[in-house]
């Protein structure tokens, strides 16, 4: 008898099983790419402000404190819906602009990044775009 539990069989199952589930995952990914155009607001991206805003979001490492659609750090509020929470893009811009350079004694405070008006417009456009993505009704309420 060749043994009731052979390393060869275990190895073959590993390779076969992994390949198999990878294929299933790729099929799901393919379907994902088919469906997300209905949800991701990609037509908004024709506005170059959004790409510029995303870059500012990245190069100032906003995700190091905030979450965006729930992903990021948990030190500062969720920003996926911040335009909705604050009521307007203008309110968001005003908040970013108003941050004191030396912080608030004893409290967490967002740094003063010294953005230009154009930068602020771009960031607001980006956050507005994210707030319009269909995120399956997340977050549960406006507080994020």
């Amino acid at each position, binding site marked *: *008898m*060749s*043994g*009731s*539990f*052979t390393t060869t*069989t*275990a190895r073959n*199952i590993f390779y*076969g*099983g992994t390949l*198999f589930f990878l*294929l*299933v995952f790729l*099929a799901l990914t393919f*379907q994902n790419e*088919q*469906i997300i155009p*209905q949800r991701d607001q990609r037509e908004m991206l024709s506005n170059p402000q959004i790409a510029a805003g995303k870059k500012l979001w990245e190069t100032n490492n906003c995700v190091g404190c905030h979450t965006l659609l729930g992903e990021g750090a948990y030190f500062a509020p969720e920003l996926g819906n911040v335009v909705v929470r604050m009521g307007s893009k203008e309110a968001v811009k005003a908040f970013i602009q108003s941050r004191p350079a030396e912080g608030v004694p004893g409290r967490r405070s967002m740094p003063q990044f010294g953005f230009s008006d154009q930068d602020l417009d771009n960031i607001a456009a980006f956050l507005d775009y994210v707030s319009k993505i269909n995120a399956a009704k997340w977050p549960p309420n406006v507080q994020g």
Partner: protein
Amino acid sequence: MSSNTASIAVQNPAARPGFSLLDRYHPPGDLAIWVFILAELLAFGVFFAVYAVARMKNVELFNAMQPNLDRSAGAINTVLLLAASWCVARAVAAIEHGRRAASARWLVAGIGCGAGFLVVKLFEYAAKFAAGINLATNDFYMFYLSLTFFHFMHVILGLVILVAVWLKTRAGAYSAADHHGMETGAAYWHMVDLVWIVLFPLVYVMR
């Protein structure tokens, strides 16, 4: 090893650290495939339970959508899978008596039935896709497509394994004394069948 004790894997547990409880008298086939089968059954089991709960929460939708499925195609496919399983079981029975050629023929028949399942299923999918149905259409179709597609992939994997077993049978790798590999492949194939036995009534018929 004689055919009747073939599956009763007699081991000295002390010589096999780990898995000893499961290792003793496990069903025919390699223990490794049985661990894998249990994992697969668990995944399907959870999938079925999630389907059932989702249906419970939205009976109207599920009952309204279910009649759109092609029950006859589902039934034909059930018979094809059962036939494939039966052929594979007969192939194992044949090799237990050393009838290698007969065993290989039964395997071909089994593979043919399995391939038939895929063809029927593809026609079924083609009709659904032509109607513009995808995973985002609604919850019922999401589950229908997910469950049947996941199972479809398993049929393909099962067929790959059966073809490998068939090639080895033709090459004379199995005998009445040693057909461990064939039993391993057969066990996996029967699992694919078993899952469909639950899937078909659940998704296609019961309301």
